[in-house]
């Protein structure tokens, strides 16, 4: 029994989500291999070989894998899928994109967003925006899984010494072409890997105010910035900052929600945070029901005061 983890990487390095996925793969009970599919990804493959608990790295390198097109990544996984009992992707935008293609072509069910491995064929996963946890058992020969990274500790990034085996890159599908990317430039920690997150909601009122109020707090704490769906829909913050059921799922040490009422869809994305602080002037805001520390105050005075007091 061997599990294959599909690495999330940028060719130069391995993204933290990969480490949590390795832990989930190890919990399935067998050896753990990692596939690094990319172009010029030697450095990422070397980094994957260092992850504790990984016994082999498979590196597929070629033009077709440069931009992570789902069609080609899935074809790459399928080319080696026969060797594995479990195939695990992190539940990132990239993992969610490719995993179901692999499952469908293997004619197996996919188990999405697992938060716990009960046994090699039984897994726990949240449903209904995390308002219920389903325990599901798969009867299929191969388990194709996406892993909710907040459900598993990160494997140690060093300590391993796996061999790297190179394989030929899958052919391009010819039906999908990468055109361009607009990356949000930021020196801040990545939202899903940050220890502290400060998140703003609709109460901020404008993109300018959102920046003016939230940025100094994030700077002071070395935190990532998040946002509620309402703030993203209103254009106060870019889409990749959205925390919630259909956005990013986060579980930092400290989550500070300012001007966020706490719709169930938002709570679904952050309620596993270790400590939650809510700043809201509405005493009835549902966010207070999950907050360890609630401060009933106008965020426009409380947040700058907080920045000064830190």
């Amino acid at each position, binding site marked *: 029994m061997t599990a294959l983890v599909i690495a999330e990487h940028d060719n130069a390095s391995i993204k933290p989500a990969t480490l949590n996925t390795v832990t989930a793969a190890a919990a399935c009970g067998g050896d753990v291999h990692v596939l690094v599919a990319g172009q010029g990804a030697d450095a990422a493959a070397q980094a994957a070989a260092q992850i504790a608990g990984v016994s082999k790295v498979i590196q597929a390198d070629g033009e077709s894998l440069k931009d992570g097109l789902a069609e080609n990544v899935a074809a790459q996984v399928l080319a080696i899928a026969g060797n594995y009992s479990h195939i695990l992707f992190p539940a*990132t935008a990239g993992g969610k994109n490719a995993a179901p293609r692999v499952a*469908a072509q293997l004619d*197996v069910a996919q188990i999405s967003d697992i938060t716990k491995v009960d046994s090699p064929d039984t897994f726990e996963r*949240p*449903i209904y925006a995390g308002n219920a*946890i389903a*325990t599901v058992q798969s009867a299929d020969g191969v388990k194709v899984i996406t892993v909710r990274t907040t459900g598993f500790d990160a494997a140690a990034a060093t300590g391993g010494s796996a061999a790297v085996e190179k394989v030929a890159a899958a052919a391009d599908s010819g039906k999908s072409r990468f055109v361009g990317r607009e990356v949000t430039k930021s020196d801040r920690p990545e939202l899903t890997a940050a220890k502290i997150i400060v998140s703003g909601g609709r109460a901020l009122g404008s993109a300018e105010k959102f920046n003016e109020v939230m940025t100094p707090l994030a700077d002071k704490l070395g935190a990532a910035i998040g946002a509620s769906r309402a703030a993203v829909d209103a254009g106060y913050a870019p889409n*990749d900052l959205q925390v919630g059921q259909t956005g990013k799922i986060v579980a930092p040490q400290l989550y500070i929600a300012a001007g966020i009422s706490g719709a169930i869809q938002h709570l679904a994305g952050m309620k596993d945070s270790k400590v939650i602080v809510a700043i809201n002037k509405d005493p009835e805001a549902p966010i207070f029901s999950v*907050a360890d520390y609630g401060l009933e105050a106008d965020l426009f005075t409380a947040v700058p005061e907080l920045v000064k007091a830190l």
Partner: protein
Amino acid sequence: MKVLVPVKRVVDYNVKVRVKSDGTGVDIANVKMSMNPFDEIAVEEAVRLKEKGVVTEVIAVSCGDAKCQETLRTAMAIGADRGILVETAQELQPLAVAKLLKALVDKEQPQLIILGKQAIDDDSNQTGQMLAALAGLPQATFASKVEVSGDAVNVTREVDGGLETLALTLPAVITTDLRLNEPRYVTLPNIMKAKKKPLDTVKPEDLGVDVTPRLKTLKVSEPPKRGAGIKVPDVATLVDKLKNEAKVI
């Protein structure tokens, strides 16, 4: 060109579901049901493409029991031209739905299939990608912008870290994200009109698809509850608590 839009009947997004005390599932008796919000965005996008003259026919499909007809009528009230109900009392999992849709794609030959990126009940986020794989089609998931030109479609996608744009050769599968559009309000005259639009019913057997579930739900339980927190009177107390009690800063 034809567009196929699959729509799912789910518990309304405003309803907070309760886990049944015997752990067999969630209690959905007498709760409000609606079209999955992402599917509503998919229907709206298809109808807008028709209004722009890019598309000639919008076909809505729903898989499930007879009540899914309501969801199809809603899709037709937004502007879909006709509906297909794949009727079954069986619990349907994403792989089964993808196979049913693949059979309909073979039959109807749409150039575009637009789906919601995930259903808000099982939160699987699988069906669109599975359909694309089974039908051998390219895919663009989590779309925030769709532009059809000739036999290709450019799709801007919401991904980790920002946006990316792909060019797909038609036919293709697209799944919608929240920012793609804001679905219109359905008006009474359009609801009346929708009642007269054609709605066909087929069975999975007619399509030659085995929909037996592959995953067995052993139990459904309540998530762990967070302990009740406290209200702090001012910023100074908050900082003190974070430093000395929670020790997170």
